[in-house]
């Protein structure tokens, strides 16, 4: 099996998922806001890795790459805002 960027990215995705699983706030958690925000940010870091390295957007011409990066930033901002409002 080739040990290339695709495999390194898979390792990072795996670690990110495990960290999120571990820090997930319990129901009676005193301050769920920070772990929640961390979990959302980790999710979008994972999204970015998938877009760039699995979907190969890193080699795509700028309008396409820009479109998806813009979606990613807007979606992340929207989710963080709604999450913070509701916590």
């Amino acid at each position, binding site marked *: *099996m080739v040990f290339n960027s695709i*495999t390194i*990215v898979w390792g990072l995705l795996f670690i990110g998922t495990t960290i999120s699983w571990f820090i*997930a706030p319990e129901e009676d958690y005193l301050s769920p806001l920070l772990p929640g925000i961390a*979990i959302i940010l980790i999710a*979008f870091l994972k999204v970015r890795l998938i877009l760039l390295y699995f979907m190969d957007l890193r080699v795509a011409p700028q309008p*396409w790459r820009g479109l998806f990066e813009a979606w990613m930033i807007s979606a992340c901002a929207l989710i963080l805002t709604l999450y913070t*409002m509701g916590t």
Partner: protein
Amino acid sequence: MTKNVPIKRLPGEEGVWGFVFGDMVMFTMFFATLLFYRYENGALFAQSQSLLNQNYGAMNTLLLLTSSWFVALGVFQYRKGKTQTGARLLIPAFACGVGFVGIKFLEFGEKIAAGITLNSNEFFTLYYMFTGIHLLHVLVGLGVLFFLWRVARGAPDGSATQTLESGGIFWHMVDLLWIVLFPLIYLI
């Protein structure tokens, strides 16, 4: 880091990217709906969420991202001319996808057996709806993977590479959407 494609070019077909973008925007509305409901009724949201099994959601995340990894490796090998290796890598990718569906059915089955249905409360309506729509994407994706496997085993040519890239992009999107849906429904 590998540099398998030196020049700037859009992998796959433009139409697939357009479709994927539309789907991602639709799911963004699902994410916002879920969080807006949480904002309006936080206590019920937290109480309902505590009835979910986080382990199922997390295992399914690991299965999908591992499946995506196999597909990315398969496309990478196919592009390098190792077409049969590329085709073979799609088999474990398919198996991981089947594992996702199996766990999802197990989870839905447990919930229904415990009397938790689409009509239990708003949280569970959204839970069944959004994870159900995502599950449909996984099922379609499994069909796509099967098709890609057949293409990859055939005579290699430029259009086959593009087909593999396009199908791969769809499957990665299914993974990507779950990566956001999973923490919003199960974790936070």
